[in-house]
């Protein structure tokens, strides 16, 4: 057999098609969950928009919407910091302090994951852009 394969790569899986990256990486609607541990999770919807000078956003838009008091992204490492004043299940004020990093920056369905602290209660989160 004269034919020679000098190099064969292992996978035969064709490249999937991905939606596109556009505009400011934080703009859009993000869905995921947060919570103090693997058992207690809270589904969350986060909507953010880049005004040109600042990020603005809302956690769980609707009658119980929580506006973001602080929302920043550091493009040097695409780290995200969010603060929002909410109430806990018993109606007591609680401040969310959320820190994460954008992953898969180039894709439409990129993610942000990190820590989501509700007052003194530490937790984690992961949200995916829709």
């Amino acid at each position, binding site marked *: *057999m*004269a*034919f*020679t*394969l*000098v*190099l*064969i*790569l*292992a*996978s*035969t*899986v*064709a*490249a999937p*098609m*991905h*939606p*596109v*990256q*556009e*505009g*400011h*990486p934080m*703009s859009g609607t993000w869905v995921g969950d947060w919570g103090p541990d693997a058992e207690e999770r809270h589904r969350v919807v986060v909507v953010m928009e*880049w*005004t*040109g*000078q600042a990020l603005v956003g809302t956690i769980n838009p609707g009658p119980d919407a929580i506006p973001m008091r602080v929302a920043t*992204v550091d*493009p*040097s490492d*695409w780290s995200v910091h969010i603060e929002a004043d909410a109430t806990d299940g018993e109606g007591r004020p609680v401040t969310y302090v959320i820190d994460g990093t954008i992953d898969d*920056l*180039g*894709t439409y369905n990129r993610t942000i994951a990190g820590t989501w602290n509700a007052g003194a209660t530490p937790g984690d989160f992961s949200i995916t852009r829709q």
Partner: protein
Amino acid sequence: MRNAAFGLSGVAVLLLAGGPGSAHHHPAAKFDPDRAVTLQGSVSKIDWLNPHVHLFMEVTDGDATVSWAVELESTVDLRRNGWGPDTVDLGDRITVDGMAARDGSRQIWANSVVHGDSGRDVFTVAPAEPPDAAEAAAPTPRWPDGRPRLGPPAGEAGGYWDFPSRSTLVEDGATAPADRHGLLADIDDAAGVAPFQPWARDLYRYRQQNFLKDDPMFLGCKPAAGPRVFQRPYGVVFLEEPERERIRVIMGGGNQNWRFIHLDGREQTGLPEGTAGDPLYFGHAVGEWDGDTLVVDTRGFHDRFWFSNGGLPHTPQLHLVERFTRTDLNTLRYEVTIDDPGAYTRTWTSSWTLRWVSGEELPVYYCQDNRP
């Protein structure tokens, strides 16, 4: 630091530096220049489609026979160089040198294809060259009212604008050499390309450092829009429709999409995210003549496309003022002022020229023939 795409060795460098204008994507967006592959086998299928022609070949290694897809340039570039779907026949033996797909699939970008035992190189593509400039001194063709014609001279048919003198958006006065896809020769030039806001600068760097792999034109054949229309291969036609007081701009480099420039004095109604009547990729364009220059004001873009080769970011606040001046028969000067306070710290301007291709029709290039 030089861009990784230009730090390669061997055949990959020859491909990237000397190859023709691929209309679709930078080879390194999909293929890894560090994974050189040589294949010998027989042709099992010829997929003669845009955006890229593919040869399928059966390759035997020991007792196993596997199929590989060999990616070539577009049908337009291949035909321009004298190749066609009958250049090779099913069953012909070929040897392919190239680089393997980044995702590990059995796909290869062909740096060279050698046919059978003859050793003849096939599917080679030379860079497209503008037509002979012998007519450069011919004056600007004009309508009876004296206004410049943006299409062919009276009595002639066909023709289009191509061969932009600059391949990507760079602020006038800045120095940032780039290849035909907009990939910078030196990534350290990125910050000087435009007056970026920090996020836009770093997103631009990210796109550059990833070989433009997230380009919507590459991923889903989304249209080029804004100034990118005038930097894509395969040209642009200005179809002047005076009876309707508008110009239809037809883009050869992307599915022959078109945008309208309205000249009837209507108000600019484009808003961020467009309006109900706006074709959001192209915004809402109104134009008027200022002497021999057509001045076009466009707003109402969304941000689901890249408005430049090379991936400069923009936001729905993008506002363009474009100036088109046909300085002679063969030369169209294009100048665009970019106002996007969502992504840039101030307005800025870039300009280049396009060359008239006389008597020819736009190449037929539909990216969607073989893409979503």
